[in-house]
């Protein structure tokens, strides 16, 4: 039992990762779509949180909510997944940001 104690009550595993939006246009329509398309391939619930002055939790499977995040270049975000494929979901979704959504 290596799982942290905070997860004891949850039936499903959770995973999260902090990233920074690094592509120049930010999370605009096309990247938001790419993210949502990928997120929808996982069973886990996916949430993307923005802190700062206007905190907002977006449903990672909703393109409208992802755009409302208004995550421009340099915005720090947290990707959270909640479900049996949480680890791989977070890893794959974070990679989209690492790869700058294939922009450059």
């Amino acid at each position, binding site marked *: 039992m290596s799982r942290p104690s905070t997860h004891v009550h949850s039936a499903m595993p959770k995973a999260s990762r902090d990233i920074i939006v690094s592509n120049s*246009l*930010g999370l*605009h*329509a096309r990247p938001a*779509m790419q993210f949502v*398309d990928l997120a929808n391939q996982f069973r886990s619930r996916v949430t993307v949180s923005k802190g700062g002055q206007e905190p907002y939790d977006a449903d990672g499977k909703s*393109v409208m909510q992802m*755009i409302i995040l*208004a995550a*421009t270049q340099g915005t720090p975000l947290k990707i959270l997944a909640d479900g049996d494929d949480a680890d791989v979901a977070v890893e794959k979704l974070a990679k989209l940001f690492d790869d700058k959504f294939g922009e450059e």
Partner: protein
Amino acid sequence: MEIKKGIGVSPGVAISTAIVLDAETLAVPRRQILAPNVDAEILRFQNALRETIEHLSRQRDDLLANQRKEIAGIIDFHIGVLHDKTLTDQIETEIRTHLNTAEYAVSVVMRKYAAVFSRMADRYLSERVKDIHDIERQLLQRLIGRGRLELAHLTGDVVVIARDMLPSQTASLDKKFVKGFATDAGGRTSHTAIVARAMGIPAVVGLGDITAEVSAGDTVIIDGNHGIVIINPDEQVLAENREAGKRYLEQETQLESLLELPAQTLDGHLISLMANIEFPTEVDDALRRGAEGIGLYRTEFLYLASDHEPSEEEHYGSYADALLRLKNRPLVIRTVDLGADKYTQDKASHPERNPFLGDRSIRMCLHDIPMFKRQLRAIMRASVLGDVRVMFPMITTLMELRQAKMLLNDVMEELEDEGVSYNRDIPVGMMIEVPSAALMAEKFAKEVNFFSIGTNDLIQYTLAVDRTNEKVAGLFCPGHPAVLGLIRDVVRKGSRSIGVSMCGEMAGEPLYTLLLLGLGLTTFSMNAPDIPEIKKIIRSTTMEHARGVARRVMTFDNERQVVHYLRDETRKIDPEAF
């Protein structure tokens, strides 16, 4: 709660549910469904959603096949939005919990998103609001179909929120249910303002982005007295505004007590107050407010309200209707003034580069003689039913006037040959609304029986200002000394031999009443709701005093001085004037 400041162009306070018109004039009335029909309504939404996605997918594939990747990308985004489960769930919840129709639910949810998008600081993201509007429209078209989204199908009281009201939209408006207007664009003399005043309902224009701020179904207060719009007011503000609305109506009633009294100055000069109308049915309201007749009947609404050019019988029917209601009081029929900002369905698709300087009004009529003659025949046939006078708009040169009069004579001869009765002594007048006509008033006065000064166009052409362009609308001022100089000369030169009236907006503005009296104007034609106020001012002054005011005003060299001085002078005799 949100408070927006604009320009109040028609007084009063309206509180009602909003409908929002976008550029394509989709109006989605709030309609309820019955609880047992919820599942069927949701299914209707899901079908529309599926059809829209299928349609867009085909469109995208075609675009990709033609190497148009940019646009295909946009369509892809629209498809992505339609696949958004959070969004579609919200719409279904709106149907299920609020028992709204599918189209209303779509409109409410999409416009909420549109409002959020348009507020985003990032320019690229806020531009996406256009995509949201586009997606909404696609869904609505499938749910209702284009034709049925017209304003003519309202079922309950609403205030109309729009970018700008198009004349063709207002013409088809179901007036019973519309309680107020608020628009993004427009100035004091915009079409929305004119229509709202004629209807006697409050309007605020020049609000910038009110269409993005208001969602269909929001409660909206339109305070036309102060130029304020309040979106989703709290209880206290709501109560205050209900009170203000009531107070305004009381004041109106008080003014209507003037109804039976003549428009006479304290030293006994009688002034004629007439009303401007667009529809024959407006005659009743005009008389109720003290009009002595109709000084301007704008016949273009006959053309705008339907999708075909009106027949001679349709013209005749409208004129006869107005005359029946007027019972021998005068009716000045202005021949059709289309073009510029008022187009028939047919002409709207071929825009001119500079429509206000283009083929409009009398010019358009002289280019389409069969159409013009149809109207003239109807006017002449109606001329035996009452006190009918005919007036030509936008006359710029003597040749135009002579041509128009010649056609009128042709029509009379035709009727003569056919044995149809008409009044061969019908008074023929012209609008003075172009500087060239104002400057040549002396010459024109020899060829017509009356002048009517149209101030909106006269100001626009004298000052070179488009009154509907918010960036320059501030330059549009009736008090500009150049405009006043033209008006003074037209009144002076015309009054020597013929009748001179004014039917522009200026005639109904209390600020200018003293001045116009002093310049010698004896007939004022205005929107009916303005009549009691103007009458009150006339009854509170002497001609001698008004002449003094006019003399003083004509010494000023700028419009600010004019406006300030007139405001002070008017308040002295009527403290409630503004």
